[in-house]
């Protein structure tokens, strides 16, 4: 058995709200799970359950209150190397062209200028944006910016990809188009991926395993293995046999969690 790439054991996180209020907020409560090398895991949960926070813990952008997070066997205390984090917003530098933004990823991975340029040109070709290399982010559509952000992350050559609601800002058709490209590329790379989403279909279509979280404070309610064959299609996978059962099973948990939240409000 392979040792896990990511191991999260008994993690809790408490936020002290700003402004010096006494009562703190428990965002995550005793979360444990592991991700095997090369595994594609989706985390889904009601909004505010702390799923994005969980990604930030893995990336070392936040520290845990209790428990520990390990990436590649090493305890995360600072930002570990080899993590590719894709944000809900594209987080591109608006003053750099698409090409220079991708070059940034390679440069931060320690490549020299010539290598970084070659790599960036190649990756822009891979994501179908070779012609837009010299455009600024403000001249690109939302879907194109997303793809540039993916190329930048790929240029950083991470061992682990963390995607925080990567397609939530895109309209339905663009989401299918961009989602499909992402899926193809990530399947080809075969790296470890955690994607956080609130879209059940997306979670099943992309992942090998779907972790469903409870409402705040977030815990893992249940894990679903997605046994569907690869390579998959972002849209077409929903017509595979077995998809509906997973959909129903996940929705059943989410619905109960959301009813709980609504009752509290």
């Amino acid at each position, binding site marked *: 058995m392979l040792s896990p790439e990511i191991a999260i054991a008994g993690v809790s996180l408490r936020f002290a709200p700003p402004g010096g209020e006494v009562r703190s907020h428990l965002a995550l409560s005793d979360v444990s799970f592991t991700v095997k090398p090369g595994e594609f895991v989706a985390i889904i949960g009601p909004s505010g359950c702390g799923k994005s926070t969980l990604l930030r813990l893995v990336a070392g*952008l936040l520290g845990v209150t209790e428990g520990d997070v390990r990436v590649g066997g090493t305890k995360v205390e600072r930002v570990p190397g080899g993590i*590719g984090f894709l944000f809900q917003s594209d987080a591109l530098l608006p*003053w750099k062209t698409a090409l220079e933004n991708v070059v940034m*990823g390679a440069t931060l991975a320690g490549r020299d200028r010539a290598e970084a340029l070659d790599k960036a040109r190649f990756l822009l070709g891979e994501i179908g944006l070779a012609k837009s290399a010299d455009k600024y*982010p*403000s001249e690109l559509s939302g879907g194109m910016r997303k793809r540039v952000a993916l190329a930048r992350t790929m240029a950083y050559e991470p061992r682990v990809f963390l995607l925080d609601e990567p397609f939530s800002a895109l309209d339905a058709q663009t989401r299918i188009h961009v989602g499909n490209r992402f899926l193809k590329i990530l399947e080809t790379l075969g790296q470890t991926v955690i994607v956080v989403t609130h879209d059940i279909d997306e979670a099943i279509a992309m992942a090998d395993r779907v972790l469903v979280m409870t409402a705040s404070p977030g815990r893992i309610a249940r894990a679903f293995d997605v046994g569907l064959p690869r390579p998959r299609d972002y849209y077409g996978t929903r017509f595979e046999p077995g998809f509906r059962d997973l959909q129903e099973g996940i929705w059943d948990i989410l619905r109960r969690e959301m009813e709980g939240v609504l009752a509290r409000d």
Partner: protein
Amino acid sequence: MTEGKGEEEYDRRRAAAVRRKRMLFYGDRIVACVLPLIGWQLLSDNWVGGKWISSPLGVAERLVSMAEDGSLQMHTWQTLQEALLGLALGMLLGVVIGVVLGLSRRLSDAIDPIIMGFYSLPRVSLAPLFIIWLGIGLLAKVALVASVVLFVVLFNVREGMRTIDRDIIEAFRSMNASRAAMLRHVVIPSLVPWIFASVRIGIGMAMIGAVVAELIGSSRGLGWYVMRSTGTYDMTGSITALVVLMILAMIFNWMLSVVEARALRWRRHSDVGLGG
């Protein structure tokens, strides 16, 4: 074929329309400049008298004679040096202090009252002190101009530091960017629009600072020339110096617009470069 021809025809007409519009614009600008000058000349010749308001022709003559004896260049150069060196020094200090305060909330909170105190102090009142400390020459003027410009830059930069896109910062942190890389690729470029905004205001303030400093104590410069001329009821002299000051400010603003439009060309809905 016909389609191609239609397109050409359309492009040609549009180019002609754009040219016409531009000519019209320059025409308007020229009229807007010349009409007041004619009015001024008439007023001076027929009603008020050149003794009080001089006249455009008088000013033009004075400009020529001052250029011939070199005094125009000498006074302009003096004021220019004061304003530009002061602006540069104020910008430098403002950016550095602004970045430091933006990085440390604690320090910023601690010294905020002191900064507000100095900011509220009319900096002009420091001029006599600067003259005593630094003499009647260039240095005192540069110091006064810098003290005027400093705060605009400081406040702009500090605000700019606080509005840097958090996602971009986290993206760079997650890629293990060093502090230096963060500063160079994220922080400084984020501040550029804010710095341009403060230069735009700073230019006017630098001119005020330089002229006021000259009024208080100097032996040359356009501000000094205004005061000396007024002292001898030489209205043509003081208005000539004012005209030169005005032209300098206009040239600076125009230059700034050009540089700004280039530096900020990544902004799509650019509100820069439209005159200045």
